[in-house]
């Protein structure tokens, strides 16, 4: 093996090591972000569009419309984890942490079958679960989860809240 090949091999190893090291246990939303509207089959894409419309409605304060959009998203594609995630966030916003946890359970399970997505959105799931557990009556902890989310994605969880626009 000549010096050039050895150098190239070393370079590849460094690159592989670097990319391995970058993959934090709770994935960063910034690195793993995908375009929702473009992902999946037609039903998933349409469902995602409705999720995005719902997030816009939530951001504009139109809660009922947002909720209806998320429900329609589930109607088209009941296996869409984003719809469940958005519903969980929405439930927290309207003060229903119990229902939020159910939606997070759904989201988590659905993300389990789509591992790439799971890494991208795990910080969201963990952070929302932390918030939901903190909001339960009586509170069920949640601070540790929130801290984990904050460490993984400080730009989103720095304020300990997930805006509709941030999820969008």
């Amino acid at each position, binding site marked *: 093996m000549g010096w050039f090949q050895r150098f190239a091999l070393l370079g590849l190893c460094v690159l592989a090591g670097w990319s391995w090291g970058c993959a934090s246990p709770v994935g960063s939303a910034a690195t793993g972000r995908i375009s929702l509207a473009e992902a999946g089959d037609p039903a998933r894409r349409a469902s995602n569009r409705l999720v995005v419309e719902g997030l816009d409605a939530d951001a504009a304060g139109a809660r009922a419309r947002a909720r209806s959009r998320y429900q329609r998203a589930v109607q*088209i594609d009941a296996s869409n984890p984003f719809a469940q995630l958005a519903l969980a966030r929405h439930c927290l916003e309207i003060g229903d942490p119990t229902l939020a946890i*159910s939606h997070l359970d759904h989201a988590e*399970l659905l993300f389990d079958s789509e591992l790439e997505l799971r890494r991208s959105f795990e910080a969201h799931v963990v952070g929302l679960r932390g918030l939901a557990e903190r909001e339960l009556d009586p509170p069920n902890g949640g601070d540790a989860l929130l801290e984990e989310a904050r460490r993984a994605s400080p730009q989103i969880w720095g304020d300990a809240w997930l805006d509709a626009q941030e999820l969008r």
Partner: protein
Amino acid sequence: MPRSRKRSAGARKRRSKRRSRAPSVWLRAPAWMRRLAAGVLALAFAAGFWCSAQVLALDRTVRERFEGVQFRVPSRVYSAPEILYPGLDWQRMDLRGTLRRLGYREARESRDLPAGQYVWNPRRLRVHLRAFEHPTRPEPSRDVVLRLSGSEIRDIRGLPSGEEVGVVLLEPEPVGAYYGPAREQRELVELEELPKHVVDAVLAVEDQRFASHPGIDLQRVAGALVANLRAGSIRQGGSTLTQQLVKNFFLTPERTLNRKLREAVMALIVEARYDKRQILESYLNEIYFGQRGPTAIHGVGEAARLYFGKPAASLSVAEAGLLAAIIQSPNGISPFREPERATRRRDLVLDLMLEQGRIGNAEHAAARDEPLRLASLSPESSDDRYFLDLLERQLADGYSGEALSEEGLRIYSSLDRRLQGLAVEALRAGIERVERRVPALHGDPTRPLQGCLLALRPRTGELLALVGGRDYGSSQFDRCVQARRQTGSVFKPFVYIAALEPNSGKPFITLASFLDDSPLEVKTPKGTWRPSNYDGTFHDTVSVREAMEHSYNVATARLALEVGLDRVTSVARRLGIESHLPQVPSLALGTADLSPLEVARAYATIASGGLRPRVQSVEDVVDGEGRVLERRNPQFERVLDAGTAYLATTLLQGVAARGTAAGVRAGGLSGPVAAKTGTTDEERDLWFVGFTPDLVAVVWLGFDEPRPVGVPSSAGALPIWRRFVEAVSGGEIRGAFPRPASVRRVAIDPRSGALARSGCPQSRNEYFLAGTLPTHECPETARKQQRGLGERFLRWLRGTG
């Protein structure tokens, strides 16, 4: 006021002076005359008193109606909206039929296509969607173009911008209504929301001097009298619009003088008490417009929906003319039955409108040229009544029967019209198929073979379709909801879940375990119980998968006894079974009487990863004033860990792939399916429960008074499920059952259940909860490893290693 009192006091004085000067006429009159006069006066007084009392009573009646609840409006139930998006198979979802049912009308291409119309070309559908009015989630009216490619929607763009829209919602479809005894349907309208030409058309033909008469139009009465005298019979009525309203509100249609007098007096009272606007609005909401089957249609709002499939606010001049035309005799001049007669009378109304200056020449000409375009008359389907009945029972805690039949609520439900139609069709065809196969079933037509089918969305608990029997008309008993029947093997998954679920950190079995299917005897208070298998044989040792896939009774019963009936019961309860579960060994084989709805919920819990959904059929309820009375969000409870639910799902996938439910693939159905058959003793109850990632469907077949059907579930209930799911999915089920992170997949040796690594002659993948993987290797691997160790040791001894 004081001045007038003074003046009248002076007048009294003058009159008394005149009386004192000469004896009054009264005193000079003969006694008999005085007596007669007194009698007449008394009679007049009494008559006056009686008339006043009558008028007062009529006045009270009028006020009670006008100031109380004027109209009883049945509450209406709507389906979930259809959603259109690129990639959707428009043929499968029957887009054309949906548009027709919603009252959309096919039109010719034009720049300004009115809302509620569509233009269908082979590769392009332009549809001007109507606005959907809802207090919190309205949808705007939208003119959109759908490019079609084969049976698929390629893209959706808004007009005129041409911008890609992506997703559009059609308005929810009316499913049915809760009628009172009168069975009247009306959609209330306010005068302000009606176009002027609607009011003008009615006034032109029914009461052109409405604005000026006091409730009775003497000129019209005289005209009618002359016309009727000339004809020698009653040809023309002289009633004003107010009189018609009074007649409809308070009186019977009999033609007597007394009724006419009361009508006239009440019309005068109504006009004296209320303004013309109120009277006109009441009239337009009350007037009878014909029948839709057994239901009477009242008011222009409902009539506009019935005849034109649109709200009254969007009626054209010609359409308004037609509605006004049929008021005289809605059934005699029905546009559906007598289109030419109706058109002739419509033109007469338009002529009157022109004569009276209510429309101009151009409008008149355009309206007369407009062909009669009616909405397709879809009779209310009795197939949806089972769903409506369930909804009524679910709403009963918040809304009385009276409220539902009178308060005009809008109930937005979860019913999926397409799935409902497919369920009806699949059940009907399936029952007929069994009857053809077993001709003896035709024996008693009064007690025919029955069945039911219901479909749920597991991740929300929404009830999507419900058919509670083969014909609602002949039996309203809902076999999916109200019946309790033995479930047979459909119960078995609860036994396996109880055994697979970790108890104190450890499950009783894993999917690599083996069960004993040798003869079993259990002593019970009623004697010795000896379960047997459907095939009449025993299979000694069988794997968990084999036992489930082939539905072995003995292995399952033994497992239930080993795990404990209390644990089996606990699992069933957690999954959503509420009926009585007898604590007997045969419970494991499905001797408990359960309803298909609770079985569906239990399987939905498995399908949704252990989250038990609340079954719901209502999304929200809006009152007549447009306020949201309540909203029902999905509710879930975590009752089973996701890993165990997944293991149960894979077991049931095996049943659908290789076991008793393998027939689901007979028609080429592809994609993830998990299912279980259930056939009770003597084939009295045939069950089939199956789920995909997005749908749980349950089918039951049997007789109301249990007797043998003559075929097993795989030949009776399974084909119905298959037909239904094939039609719903187009033969290709999308998605996958998500595997939780807590479940590991490893290769095992199917003969021993041990781990299969290199050297193992057979292997298959199996699923395990973390921490429950087999710890031993298959015999060949172990031998190879031992050999490998020995060889390495020898090489080391020889110094060659």
